[in-house]
């Protein structure tokens, strides 16, 4: 037996959650040819078919683009730290964290969350991330198609992978979905909302395997200085869109919004593709050119992170290649390494 929910039932569930004050995010058509995960104002904004995947990722729900870490008041030479200026910030340890629901995430987005858990919790615990993560329920829609830039199967995932999801939806082809609850959060969300059925949903078979991550790891470990990186970086414009649209890229900066912005310290997304990322105060820069920055991104994903945390820092979503103005990304670099 299986549990199913109709598409209208799913939209009603979303409407109920929005009405209850939950921040609900999901794929939505922002403009022609652009689908993004965004906060849904209405269940009708939820886009469920006709696209491969959104051009951004769900990491924004647990790791916002910019986030206030704390505020401060300056009075003469006295400083007072404050909990923050905005109402939705988490700088006050006791402030309630708004509940979040991500609906129709892709498996390659959901899988990024348990991977990110490592970095935000080894040794020092990052409560900004952890509190948002605990307040978030992820409902994943198994893929019914894949695009030319998709490569989840090369990094150990697939279109029906459950990792990081609280519940999975599978299309039944008749306007309804099979629901498979994975965690208590998922079960609580769908409790009483589904019907029993004998229908079983299916997912896309996924892209063929395009490269072996172990081959990529061996190459980057042994080719720190190599003309390969220069060739790949020739057309890179250093815009950082690869990192910003990546579900697992998590590098950040800490900056002050000064007096004109109300005095607060923020963390903001950053990218290893920017020259300032590693520039020393002396003017020296260990990664002075784009080739070394391209190398760093592959090295981090296939060697550094796996060495430290046992997992590749990539879920095969293909966003870096898909969004790059020059078509460079993990897929193109890793494929070229593997096909050497």
């Amino acid at each position, binding site marked *: 037996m299986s549990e199913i929910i109709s598409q209208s039932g799913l939209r009603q569930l979303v409407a109920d959650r929005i009405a209850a004050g939950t921040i609900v995010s999901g794929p939505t058509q922002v403009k022609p040819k652009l689908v993004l995960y965004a906060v849904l104002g209405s269940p009708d904004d939820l886009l469920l078919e006709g696209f491969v995947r959104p051009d951004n990722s769900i990491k924004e729900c647990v790791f916002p683009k910019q986030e206030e*870490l704390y505020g401060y008041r300056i009075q003469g030479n006295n*400083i007072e730290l404050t909990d923050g200026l905005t109402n939705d910030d988490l700088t006050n340890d006791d402030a309630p964290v708004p509940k979040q629901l991500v609906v129709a995430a892709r498996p390659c987005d959901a899988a990024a969350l348990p991977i990110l858990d490592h*970095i935000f919790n080894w040794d*020092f*615990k*990052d409560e900004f991330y952890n509190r948002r993560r605990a307040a978030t329920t992820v409902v994943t829609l198994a893929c019914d198609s894949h695009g030319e830039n998709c490569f989840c199967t090369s990094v150990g995932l697939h279109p029906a992978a459950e990792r990081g999801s609280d519940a999975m939806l599978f299309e039944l082809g008749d306007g309804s979905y099979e629901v498979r609850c994975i965690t208590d959060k998922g079960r609580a969300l769908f409790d009483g909302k589904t019907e029993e059925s004998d229908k079983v949903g299916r997912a896309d078979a996924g892209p063929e395997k395009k490269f072996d991550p172990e081959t990529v790891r061996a190459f980057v470990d042994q080719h720190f200085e190599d003309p390969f990186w220069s060739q790949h970086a020739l057309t890179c414009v250093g815009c950082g869109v690869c990192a910003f649209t990546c579900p697992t890229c998590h590098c950040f900066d800490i900056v002050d919004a000064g007096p004109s912005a109300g*005095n607060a310290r923020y963390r903001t997304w950053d990218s*290893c593709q920017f020259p300032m990322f590693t520039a020393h105060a002396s003017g020296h820069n*260990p990664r002075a050119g784009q080739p070394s920055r391209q190398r760093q991104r592959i090295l981090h994903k296939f060697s550094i992170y796996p060495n430290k945390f046992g997992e590749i820092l990539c879920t095969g979503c293909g966003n870096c290649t898909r969004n790059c103005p020059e078509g460079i990304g993990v897929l193109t670099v890793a494929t070229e390494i593997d096909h050497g």
Partner: protein
Amino acid sequence: MDNANANANVYKPDLMEVVSVRQQTPDVKSLSLRFIDPERARSFSFQVGQFGIFSAFGYGESTFNICSSSNWKDRIEFCFRKVGRVTEALWKTEEHDVVGFRGPYGNGYPMDVWKGHDLVFLGGGIAMPPIRCAVWYALENRADYGEITIVYGARSVADLVYVDELDEWAKHERVRVVRCVDPGGETPDWKGEIGFVPHVFERAQVQSKDPVVLVIGPPIMIKNTLPILDKMGVTPASVYTSIENRMKCGIGKCGRCNVGPIYICKDGPVLTMEQLQQLPADY
């Protein structure tokens, strides 16, 4: 680590009052700070070689070595060159102003491992502060260490920092201080050596059996020092340095300070040359 309250905001700094300001050179100052929270002042401890993230409110945070000795319980000190937004703001701070501090972070010098050894400190320019804390610590625990040699140089006489302390150290027994400036950087009354730190160190003919060496300075200085140490028979495992990659979080998350698999903010900043030789040149 100093993360007792698991739910704490790990990015929130301690507030510290500026106790004194010293201008070291035309563009280098050092600040002496005390914790405003008396409980924090009482419980705080660190190891020489560790670093802090210091902040000027309204401008931002920057990473500096804590250049005071860990035996000084009433204050911590750091030293900076005026080069950017944050250090321009720190430059303007005066006594009784308040700055932010997060830390201590990183591993520090293994002062216990160094016990029983002669110590050789080689520093260039603004690299003196991270050496200074170890020198003071060794002098305050004098019986634990052998002969101490300090070779310190800068571009010019005006660029030397902690000059008065160099004189003070030289008064101690079994301490030799060699000062130098780059050719052309001397003044008419300059009494120290003229030359680059590695050459001056070689000329100094330091006789030492199995010393521990701490060398901090520009990459070229470190590079030219290593062959000399090799000739002296000092193994890379006995040569230490402090890697000063750009950092933001200081706690192993923001992703920029790594040298290969090593997060400098967590596994460094203090590494041996033996460790460094295993790593890619990402510093």
